Every structure is written in C-alpha cells, then in structure tokens.
C-alpha cells in the first residue's frame, strides 16, 4: 500500500511569512496526526483528527498555527506568521482505527521548515 505522503519536503521562509504543509494519509485511515519535531528532540503532537473532526488540538499554538481536514482525507497545516522557533520537521502520521490505543501510526517523510 502507498505510504503517507507529505509536501513540500523542504521549505525556507523568513520570519513573519506564512507557510502551509500538505499531508495525504494512507487510504482508509480514519485518524490523522500532525507532529512537530525540533532538532534533537522527539516528535511532539500538535493536532489529531478523526475523519474530518478535531479530536485533540490542546498542544497547537492556535495564535499562529491552524490545521484542517475538510473531507476527512488529506490535511493542511498552516503557520501564519512564522517565528524562528518554528524551525523544525513537521511530521504527518495516520492510523486505521479511530480510537485504537494499541495500533501503530504510520509516518510520512516530513517537511523540514527553516525560518530565517
């Protein structure tokens, strides 16, 4: 089966600019996650969707970050305006069962964002 797709793979922007990342999960996966991975750290969950609804966005900096999954398939994560500390790899993941705590997540290759 095809894996999780993400684009772009790399992005360089100046601070205060906006940027958007796209993710297409594995076909049939109801749950989609966005993680932020700062260099030298483990990934940190930003937001979780189940189909087209938000399950958890408690760790999303909502003053500048937004995400949507309008049709319950692909998703977009946006940052506006970007700050230097947003430089990180943004990982998208998906899993099949809606609430399966024991099921593994499948990760995309990530988008490496550099804010200058």
């Amino acid at each position, binding site marked *: 089966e095809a894996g*999780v797709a*993400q684009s772009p793979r790399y992005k360089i922007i100046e601070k205060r600019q906006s940027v958007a990342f796209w993710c297409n999960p594995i076909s049939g996966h109801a*749950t989609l*996650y966005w993680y932020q991975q700062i260099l*030298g*750290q*483990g*990934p*940190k*969950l930003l937001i*979780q969707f*189940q189909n087209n609804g938000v*399950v*958890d966005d408690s760790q999303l900096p909502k003053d500048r970050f937004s995400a949507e999954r309008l049709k319950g398939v692909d998703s977009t994560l946006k940052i506006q305006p970007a700050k230097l500390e947003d430089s990180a790899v943004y*990982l998208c*993941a998906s*899993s099949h*069962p*809606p*609430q*399966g*705590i*024991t*099921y*593994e*997540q*499948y*990760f*995309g*290759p*990530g988008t490496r964002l550099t804010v200058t």
Partner: protein
Amino acid sequence: AQSVAQPEDQVNVAEGNPLTVKCTYSVSGNPYLFWYVQYPNRGLQFLLKYITGDNLVKGSYGFEAEFNKSQTSFHLKKPSALVSDSALYFCAVPWAAGNKLTFGGGTRVLVKP
C-alpha cells in the same frame, strides 16, 4: 502523565556486536510501549510494540525488546548490529484515548564497520 525516558543520547557499537537501546517508562495502569526508528531524511518507522503477554517482543529488522515491569524498562535489542542500523531510535507511549503518542528524546545509534 504517561512518559518515557531514553537515558543515552548516543550509542556506539561495532558491527556484529550486540546492540541495546535503553528506555524507561512512567505509566499509570497497564503500559503499552512502542519503538520507532528514524533514518536520515525519512519519517519514523514502526519497529515493535508491547501490549500484553510475553515480555520479549520481536519486531522488524531483527530487533526485539524486553519488557521489565520491576525495572519499568523496555530496552530495544539486536543480537548482531549492522552498519545499516545506524539511525535515531525513539521509545514512545500512548496516552489518553485516541492513541496520541509521547516520545522519548531519542537515541542516536552509530554502528561502525
């Protein structure tokens, strides 16, 4: 709160030697534990998970992990390391409903020929 810790930032091992990557956990209730690997410029790949049952869990690429309740540990092991095993390894624990994952800080493994 559910958490995991990886006490070593980096592990160096010679090819052919045993590899161990350490992880300790702090979990309320029954622990579910995962190991993921991240190769350069690639996303995380699932290696194995502990749900219940046997304390020795076998996973992908010849890796296995030993769950030890008394020591609250879930160390990743491979009997004979390969140069291609050089990567970043993460231990993770799900929390709350919805399978959200909390990751450890990661351990970089360098296998030298």
